[in-house]
Structures are given as structure tokens and as C-alpha cells.
């Protein structure tokens, strides 16, 4: 788990705009940073840090900035990076929190960690705003924090679901159902709680008209829509046929079974016997 290489955020980095780091993964020194769980750059409070250290994290976190916090203990400093890092061109940080790490933690620990991550993200967003038209040092931290926040939420959701299934027999998730819209198409509706039931709410019904059975306009629309879909499907079928013919012309020994699996709508044997699939080779 630990020896796996760092997550590489290169594809998203162009949005932040750092050409320096966009084409290479985060720099990792030999042993130290493999074990750091998250961005040591902004963990100011040592008491929080000790609790949140990962279980296999026997080695020390690389950098801490306790001096700055002692000198100026204004809570506004948490919105900015520690003063040591203001002049640094490169900042080295560890990996994000994975689900396997977070599953080991208790609920209260996760709750604390969420606020650490939230503050870290706010700090990074302010710094990104300052470096808006220039290069931000280590912009991948933003993605790392967001990834670990997402993982944390998933773990909390897992526990929630387990509890609800045990107690009530349902997942505690938001309920969904498929519903017919006014024009006759199905959509996934995420259900919500209301003080007035939907069918009794006249104002709402005026604003959002519901599906009516045996409506001429709907039927006309649906026939045209189905025709459109069918045309699209047939066109795709013809395109596939041409592609398969071309393949057979170029490579006469191509695997027929594989092609049949890939294009189940086509009759591959019939195509192979056709004139168009015949190449310059002697039959």
C-alpha cells in the first residue's frame, strides 16, 4: 500500500498553470515522505497532528512550522501559508489520505481531520488567488486535499450505510426513482422532502407540468424521437460494416470470433464472403 507510487495529477495541472510541474510527478525524497500522510506544511497544532498520524507512520513528518505560530498567533494566519514557504519555489509534500488509511480511524478522528483538510483547502485557495497569474509552488496540493476529502466522505458514507442497513433495513442515502417527464422521457428523480405534497401543490404544478397519458403531442414527439434514434443506430451499423470490410480486406486472417463479439449486430460470416471484403490476395 505504502510502496505504491504517488498519485499523478498531471492532466489537471494545466488549469492551475504551472508548466514546471505539469509533466512530472511530485518529487519524493527516498524514505521520509512515503510515510507522511498529508501536507505537513500547514499543520500548526501539534496536538491534532499526533492523533492523525497514520498507523504505519513510524517516521517523522518532514517539516513543521511551530515557530511562526508562536510568534503571531492570529487565527487569520491559518488562511495563509507559513512564512518560511513564501519565498520557496518548490514545496515538497506527501500523498493524500487513502480510503484504507481512513477506515482505521474512529469517527471523532475523521471529524477532526475533516476540519484540518478544510482549513488546508482554504489556505491553498487563498494562495492560488495570490499566485493567480504566476506559478504556484506545488499546485497539486489542491487536488490532493480534495481527493482526501472525497475519500473521507466516502468512508463516512460507508459507515452510515452499514448502520442504517442494520437498524432500518434501508441505505440512508437519498431516495431516487425513475419518473416520466412532460415530454414522455424517463429521467432519474432525486426525491426531496416537502411540507406540501407534490400533487396538492397547485403553484408548483403550474410551473412544472407533469406527464399526461394519451397526449397527441407527446405521442407525435415520441414517434419522431424513436425514428431519430433508429436512424442513428442504422447509420452506425452501416459504418461498422464498412469498417469490418476494410479490416478483412487488409488483414484476411483477422479473428472472426472476436469481431462477432465486438459487433453482435453484424453477420460477420456473411460480410467475409462478400465481394467488398475480398482483398488483392488469391482466394
Amino acid at each position, binding site marked *: 500500500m505504502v510502496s505504491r507510487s504517488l498519485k499523478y495529477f498531471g492532466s489537471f495541472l494545466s488549469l492551475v498553470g*504551472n*508548466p*514546471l510541474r505539469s509533466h512530472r510527478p511530485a518529487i519524493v525524497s527516498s524514505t521520509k515522505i512515503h510515510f507522511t500522510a498529508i501536507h505537513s506544511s500547514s499543520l500548526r497544532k501539534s496536538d491534532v497532528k499526533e492523533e492523525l498520524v497514520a498507523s504505519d507512520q513510524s517516521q517523522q513528518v518532514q517539516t513543521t512550522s511551530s515557530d511562526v505560530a508562536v510568534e503571531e498567533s*492570529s*487565527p*487569520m494566519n*491559518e*488562511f*495563509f501559508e507559513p512564512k518560511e514557504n*513564501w*519565498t*520557496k*519555489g*518548490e514545496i515538497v509534500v506527501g500523498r493524500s489520505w487513502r480510503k484504507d488509511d481512513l477506515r482505521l480511524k474512529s469517527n471523532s478522528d475523521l*471529524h477532526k481531520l*475533516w*476540519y484540518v483538510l*478544510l*482549513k488546508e*483547502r*482554504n489556505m491553498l*485557495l*487563498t494562495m492560488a*488567488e*495570490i*499566485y493567480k*497569474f*504566476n*506559478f*504556484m*509552488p506545488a499546485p497539486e496540493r489542491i487536488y490532493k486535499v480534495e481527493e482526501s*476529502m472525497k475519500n*473521507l*466522505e466516502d468512508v*463516512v458514507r460507508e459507515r452510515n450505510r452499514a448502520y442504517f442497513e442494520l437498524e432500518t433495513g434501508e441505505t440512508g442515502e*437519498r431516495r431516487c426513482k425513475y419518473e416520466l417527464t412532460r415530454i414522455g422521457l424517463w429521467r432519474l428523480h*432525486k426525491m*426531496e*422532502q*416537502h*411540507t406540501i405534497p407534490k400533487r396538492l401543490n397547485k403553484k408548483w404544478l403550474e410551473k412544472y407540468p407533469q406527464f399526461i397519458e394519451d397526449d397527441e403531442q407527446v405521442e407525435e414527439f415520441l414517434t419522431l424521437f424513436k425514428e431519430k434514434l433508429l436512424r442513428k443506430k442504422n447509420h452506425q451499423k452501416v459504418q461498422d460494416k464498412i469498417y469490418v470490410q476494410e479490416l478483412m480486406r487488409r488483414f484476411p486472417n483477422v479473428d472472426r470470433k472476436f469481431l462477432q463479439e465486438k459487433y453482435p449486430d453484424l453477420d460477420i460470416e456473411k460480410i467475409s464472403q462478400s465481394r467488398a471484403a475480398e482483398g488483392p490476395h488469391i482466394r
Partner: protein
Amino acid sequence: MSTRWYPLYQRGNPQLRVFLPNFWMKVIKPKEEIPPNMVHFHVSNEMTEYDVRNYLTKIYKLPVVAVRVEMKNGETVKTQQGDIIKEDDYKEAHVTMEKGFKFSFPEIDTRPGYDIFKKSSEQTKKTMDDLEKKYRYRPGLPTWFEQ
């Protein structure tokens, strides 16, 4: 889970609580001169004044006195491709703290990594020049010949 789905509150029910808030706030440099006990923020668009106040007092332990939020239009800008686009709208919060509170936006070097960038770009340019020199058009010469 403040911006996620939330059950309906009816009178008499226990108070709804947010356990994992996912709002963001960032400090911005004020455009005009403001008193030292005021701070300007950019916040999530869903946040209300009460949200901002609770966020700052509960999470950051800041002595908030008054909050004012307003929605701002995103600017219409011209991209490099020549398309005119509108940037996203954003919410700005003007927060006043207690009288003794002092905060001034720190002056931070906006390009600390510029030297490294310059060095690497110089190096890439040098290697490209070398390659161009090596493989320049010289008809008649064999490929193994080096000058």
C-alpha cells in the same frame, strides 16, 4: 454536508447540525483601503450571512461582529482564441471584527518559483538548439558523420 441534500426541518424537531461542512472561503486583497478590523473574503455561492458568521466563529475562532455578503457578476473577457466568454459569478463577504482586531493583507512575492522556471526553460532551449545543429539539412553527408 452543507451543500448536499438535507432533510426538511419542522418545528419541534431537533436542531439540524452540519457535521462535515464543505464550504470554502478565501481571503482576498481589498481593492480599496479598508479599516484594520475588516476582512474581505470570497465565499461559496450558497453561503448566507449566518453561514459566514458561524464558519468564522466556530472553525477559525474569529471575533466576528457584522457580515455583509453580495453576489458579483463574473467579468466578460476575451480569450487567447478570440472568443468572448463570461467568467463565473462569485460571492464576496465583507466581515467586520471586534475593535481591537488588526489584520493587513500580507505582501507575498507573487512568483517565488520563477528562477527555477527560467533555468529549466533555458536548458530546454539549449537542448533544442543542439538537436537542430546536429540534424540540420546537409545533403550528401552520411549519417554516421559527426562534425
